């Protein structure tokens, strides 16, 4: 009868998807902000010691990372002594020089003298392995190093 008769078909109304872009953008932004670009997955324990006289590691100059520490859970077959990790795998001391060479080869020539080697060493590691690595670095003339640490009171390192 009436021209404007409501059609009640009883079907479920469509859910509005207008806010879907918002949610997607929110997630996108969140991950953009919170993501730390991690170059390597670690196979070793790597709890860094803390220090309070730190300088920020300048990312303007190229940085190469050398990790040291005890093999973490799941990698016990590599022993309980501290090991070196370069990129994604365990390495021997003799490979450090070649690693630095490879890192240098990937750089533009004018940046090579500014290459900093960041040593990310577990606080339970002993100095023997660190000293050996330093010696290897001296051999290949990679003299700029950085002992990467967290920020905190250095006296808390010793328990």
């Amino acid at each position, binding site marked *: 009868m009436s021209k404007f008769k409501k059609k*009640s*078909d*009883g*079907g*479920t*109304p469509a*859910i*509005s998807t*207008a*806010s879907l872009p*918002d*949610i997607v*953008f*929110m997630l996108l*932004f*969140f991950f953009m*902000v*919170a993501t*730390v670009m991690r170059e390597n997955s670690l196979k070793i324990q790597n709890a860094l*010691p*803390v*220090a*309070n*006289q*730190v*300088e*920020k*590691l*300048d990312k303007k100059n190229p*940085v190469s990372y050398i990790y040291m520490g005890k093999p973490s859970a799941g990698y016990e077959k590599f022993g309980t002594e501290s090991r070196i990790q370069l990129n994604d795998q365990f390495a021997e001391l003799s490979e450090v020089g070649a690693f630095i060479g490879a890192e240098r080869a990937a750089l533009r020539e004018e940046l090579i003298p500014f290459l*900093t080697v*960041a040593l990310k*060493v577990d*606080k*339970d*590691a*002993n*100095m*023997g392995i*660190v*000293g050996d690595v*330093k*010696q290897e*670095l*001296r*051999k290949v*003339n*990679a*003299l*700029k*190093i*950085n*002992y*990467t*640490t967290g*920020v905190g009171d*250095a*006296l808390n*390192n*010793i328990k």
Partner: protein
Amino acid sequence: MAKRSAPEVNAGSMADIAFLLLIFFLVTTTIEKDSGLNRKLPPMEEDVDPPIIKQRNIFTVLLNGKDQLLVEEELMEIKDLRAAAIEFLDNNGDGTCTYCKGVKITSSSDNPDKAIISLKNDRETSYATYISVQNELVAAYNVLRNRRALEVGPQNGFTDMNFVEMQKNYKDARFVGNKTKLKEVINQIKVEFPQKLSEVQ
């Protein structure tokens, strides 16, 4: 019974909620930035005679395998190391250092330029202790450089700025001020208190 269609949910405020969450996470997340102690290794030089350095100009710090600290042949706690290092660097035994405030005893270092801290460690020394000691020694240099910066800074137009802040400002792109002058001041202080920290193998 007549079927009733479910009323449509108003989604207009969804964007608001999304932005609220976005802003919350923006504010609360911190991006980890690597920081650490910068060091320079000595170059590998073969058959070079080591320069003769007077024993009193060397401040020997020894860390043994049990993480015990031996400073100038005496046992010491790490917390006392900073003060001892400052005293050594600032001693000014030969009186040539006009900006030093040390006690000028003849059995300690001549001047900051000649004073060398030698850090020696065992293979069994733990890395955590080693970093603590490194940190304290760097702190000793920073204390002296900060003190000097507060003296030199005002003459060059940088009041109330210690050495660490000067370095930070120099790297800061937003810093308003004379950067070339700041660099000069930083370099001057670095020359006056050179960081001569040798890591013995």
